[in-house]
């Protein structure tokens, strides 16, 4: 794998993660459980879609085929998307949204803390801007993990169930493959294996405060970031996300 290929893939993965997670969050817009949380979730959605734009712009530039952020977002089908499976999981209830966000933020925070030292100046600049946002996201989702875990019996049970369901999607986040390895060796991104311990430590710390049990998982689910597989949810996300561009192709909006 050439470094150029790896960089393009890496940016796509990051961009797709941000876009799909932003999409899921934006589904809450107008339907949040409390007005303040409607605003907060929409705010995180905004950050994620904003980050997706920067990342996909850069990916398109690296690809060098004249595509734009919108071409990448609106014209790829499921099997060309490179987001991790975690971010496409549905908002079954607010607990799922919080757990998904927390499990992703804890990873994303460590990733960006490392990326601010990237040898790639462009990615470094994006990461510096994003890190501030992600620091807030992680604080927000951690607080809600604790609030719901250490809230009522009902909320505890709901968030434990969400955690049990979603934890199987965390393996993919920090299991490096050839792309990650190439990026690491080029000094552009972190050694993912080195982030595993701090990731688990963060999870443990918050779950302990939230009085939640860490699920025991024999097999992790993966396939999103390397494009091997997605869950059936992604197709529905894209049908909605891409409708206007697909129905009215090649227009300015």
């Amino acid at each position, binding site marked *: 794998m050439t470094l150029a290929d790896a960089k393009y893939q890496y940016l796509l993965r990051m961009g797709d993660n941000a876009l799909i997670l932003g999409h899921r969050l934006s589904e809450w*817009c107008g*339907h949040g*459980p409390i007005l303040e949380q409607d605003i907060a979730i929409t705010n995180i959605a905004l950050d994620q*879609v904003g980050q997706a734009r920067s990342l996909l712009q850069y990916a398109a530039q690296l690809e060098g085929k004249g595509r734009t952020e919108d071409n990448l977002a609106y014209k790829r089908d499921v099997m060309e998307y490179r987001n991790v499976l975690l971010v496409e999981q549905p908002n079954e209830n607010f607990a799922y949204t919080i757990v998904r966000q927390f499990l992703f933020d804890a990873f994303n925070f460590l990733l960006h803390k490392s990326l601010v030292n990237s040898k790639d100046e462009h990615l470094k600049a994006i990461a510096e801007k994003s890190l501030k946002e992600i620091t807030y996201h992680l604080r927000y989702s951690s607080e809600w993990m604790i609030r719901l875990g250490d*809230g009522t019996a*009902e909320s505890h049970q709901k968030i434990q169930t969400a955690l049990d369901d979603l934890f199987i999607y965390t393996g993919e986040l920090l299991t490096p493959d050839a792309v990650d390895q190439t990026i690491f060796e080029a000094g552009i991104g972190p050694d993912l294996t080195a982030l595993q311990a701090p990731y688990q430590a963060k999870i443990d710390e918050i779950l302990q405060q939230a009085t939640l049990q860490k699920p025991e998982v024999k097999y992790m689910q993966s396939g999103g970031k390397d494009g091997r597989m997605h869950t059936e949810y992604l197709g529905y996300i894209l049908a909605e*996300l891409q409708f206007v561009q697909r129905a009215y192709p090649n*227009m*300015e909006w």
Partner: protein
Amino acid sequence: MKAPADYAHLEDQFQARIDAEEKIEPKDWMPDKYRKTLIRQISQHAHSEIVGMLPEGNWVTRAPSLRRKVALLAKVQDEAGHGLYLYGAAETLGAERDDLLDELHTGNAKYSSIFNYPTLSWADIGAIGWLVDGAAIMNQVPLCRCSYGPYARAMVRVCKEESFHQRQGYEIMLTLARGTEAQKKMAQDALNRWWWPSLMMFGPNDAESKHTAQSMAWKIKRFTNDELRQRFVDITAPQAEFIGLTIPDEHLKYNEETGHYDFGPINWDEFWQVVSGEGPCNRQRLKARRRAHEEGQWVRDAALAHAEKRRQRQAAKKDQKVA
């Protein structure tokens, strides 16, 4: 309880302050009816912001470009923010947000009827920004000088943001109107569907409007419905012309004599139908708000329970230190 004479005196003083353009503040004395009128108006306004998130939120996941998606998300977030500080303003008058929400969810409180129309294409997002926010600003700019301080100050911020939204909406329409045939058609169709409901946003004709006189005296209202509606038409008609869209009113015509646009009769039957809860989306809007509230109950309960646990733990810690 005050004797009638005292009360009359207080009312005179109150009116004198208003006449002198002084702001009334939460702790000041005010007539009960002033307080009630304001609570009703401010909470209706807050509800409108919250319900207004629904038709626009409906296109967030389907916005046609990432740039537009970000702008739309930001806009809807602004509306939630407006709702938040408007509920806050109502609370300065002694209302409770929970009670106000109950009124909304049981269908007793009103909100702007315009949000009972569906958003059926991306162009509707443009039309809402241009027309609905445009009409809202027309209504709200005078409220920045409203006699009640907290409301007036909230309105200053709201109007600033609405004005930004309005320009954004107009720009969406402009882009579509200058786009392909399909886009132009989409824009024209949106204008066709949103034009008349926008005119209805100013409320019944002055002759039919119950609250106007008292509200004008209290400077809660500074222009009549018909005055504001005329101003809106006068500003919007040339904007439509500029981008090459046709306002769906065969009577619309600039009147050289009056210096205003004449326009056709409004379908007041439709207006009253929608106000009475029978518009195209009244049920869906209320159901969506109620569902969000009901499904959010366990989250609010958890937040309260957790806060209480923390309070108790901290109290226990303090007790230990003292002991």
